[in-house]
């Protein structure tokens, strides 16, 4: 079955990356970690996008979770597992609460409602001294079930930890997307009336997707907080961050659960080299890339990979 191919492929990739982790340069490992974080959020957008819903405000859940990690630090929590799971769960809970409102809207209102909340979060974070205002907060290097690595070992361990988390997320999302609930994508997008008259609540379907999406963005934010060792409102909760996630989602395409991570790697690599050649070049390249993607490969990098491998229908 094609879906199992995805799981096999992802498993092989994760194992290879885990091995490579011990040999690669530090800056490549850092790009890998950032890609994991961004990719998780883009995976969250994929879950919504397949149903024709887009969110321009996922920095809300991303930032909420990232600050969750920083604040848990202040409470003395250092363990990476606890930090990431609790913070992401908090984001999922936030999505659940907001979902009662958001699920009633579609299209542009759905897209912007989350953004409205993210702007509120940004305002609160930037104005509150306890949260470090615009400077943000530092995040301590985490421990891993009692193991407290330092220097390079810390980064290597964090990379392994990130891979483990991502692997779990991909498996979970893949199982969800194959389920009756997860398959309600085109159905909800095309005919809500029929879905209701088949016996299921469209709002419920959307609410669940929203929570899963918020949870995934939460995992992304928590990984990012650990990877960069600090959180700040500008890069974590401002609406430009949300824009970047949408950019990555478009770059990646929605064809496969692995696509957002491939898209995220491409995004981080482009950003890395663009920065080296001048500060304003970055926006120029980003705009040009977006333009090229929309005009020539609207189904994203994944569709290009599919074509290269020569599978027209590919893995779903």
């Amino acid at each position, binding site marked *: 079955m094609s879906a199992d191919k995805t799981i096999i492929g992802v498993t092989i990739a994760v194992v290879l990356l885990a091995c490579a982790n011990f040999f690669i340069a530090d800056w490549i490992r850092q790009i890998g970690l950032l890609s994991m974080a961004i990719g998780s959020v883009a995976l969250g957008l994929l879950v919504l996008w397949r149903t024709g819903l887009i969110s321009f405000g996922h920095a809300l859940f991303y930032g909420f979770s990232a600050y969750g990690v920083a604040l848990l630090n202040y409470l003395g929590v250092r363990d990476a597992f606890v930090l990431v799971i609790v913070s992401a769960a908090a984001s999922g809970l936030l999505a659940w609460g907001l979902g009662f409102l958001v699920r009633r809207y579609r299209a542009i209102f759905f897209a912007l409602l989350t953004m409205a909340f993210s702007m509120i979060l940004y305002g609160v974070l930037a104005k509150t001294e306890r949260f470090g205002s615009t400077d943000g907060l530092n995040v301590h290097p985490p421990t891993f079930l009692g193991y407290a690595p330092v220097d390079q070992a810390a980064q290597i361990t964090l990379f392994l930890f990130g891979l483990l988390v991502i692997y779990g997320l991909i498996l979970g999302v893949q*199982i*969800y997307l*194959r*389920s*009756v*609930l*997860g*398959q*309600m994508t*085109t*159905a909800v997008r*095309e*005919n809500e*009336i*029929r*879905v*209701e*008259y*088949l*016996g*299921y*609540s469209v709002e419920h379907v959307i609410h669940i997707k929203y929570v899963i999406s918020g949870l995934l963005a939460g995992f992304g934010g928590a990984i990012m907080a650990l990877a960069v060792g600090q959180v700040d409102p500008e890069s974590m909760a401002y609406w430009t961050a949300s824009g970047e996630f949408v950019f990555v989602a478009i770059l990646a395409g929605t064809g496969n659960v692995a696509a957002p991570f491939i898209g995220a790697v491409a995004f981080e690599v482009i950003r890395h080299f663009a920065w080296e050649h001048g500060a304003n070049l970055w926006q120029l390249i980003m705009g040009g890339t977006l333009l090229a993607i929309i005009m020539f490969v609207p189904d994203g990098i994944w569709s290009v990979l599919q074509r290269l491998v020569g599978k027209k229908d590919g893995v779903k």
Partner: protein
Amino acid sequence: MTTILEVNGLEKRFGGVVAAQNIGVTVSAGETIGIIGANGAGKTTFVNMVTGHLPPSAGTVKFLGTNIVGLPPRRITELGLCRSFQVPQVFLSESVFDNVLMAYGIAEESGFSMLRPLRNKERDARVRKHLASYQIAEHEETAASALSQGIRKLLDIAMATVRKPQLLMLDEPTSGISVEEKFDLMDIIMAALREEQTTVMFIEHDMEIVQRHVARVLAFSQGEIICDAPTAKAMVDPKVVEFVLGQEYHVGIRSDA
């Protein structure tokens, strides 16, 4: 025979306009009922109120002993009252197979079991069998958007019947279908429903189809039921002749007889 549907004093007002009033009807298990009436007589309004598509202004609808007024469509569907639409409500970009597969998925899973895979061999087999009984199996791979109107109607009705409803309401199953096609279409639908012993009510304008398939007729005019009688009796009822059939039709029947 057990009563499955009991409608009393059903009424719908849009501002000052009365779309339906004083609607009362009792349906027993196993009946086939035709709903007739001129355009704007309140037929679709009646079906919409019973199936939860439109909230009534007054009155009660009891289905299997439960008052279903105010329940959302999905609850009514779950109870076993399903419907099709005048304009087929299907998932246009998906194949016929996937449309019915989704219908099965939703009908067969609930709560956390909704997280089970949509596809499995057994469910695929049930979908194929269902497609076969509506004679649309050959279109399995075709996207719903590429179907002819008649096949799309069959798909809509096939999706409405995967739950094996206690009562099925069809809103003009033959509208928009050519004269040559619609008799075959109705034969297919009614044969499939007989197989499942589904109680059915459908809105129909063609009196030949009504006479061929239903034992009882509800005639609507200006938002009210003007006649509720066995088909043969209803066809000669003076009110039905005046407000629904028209004098010419009446003469036509006599000359046939």
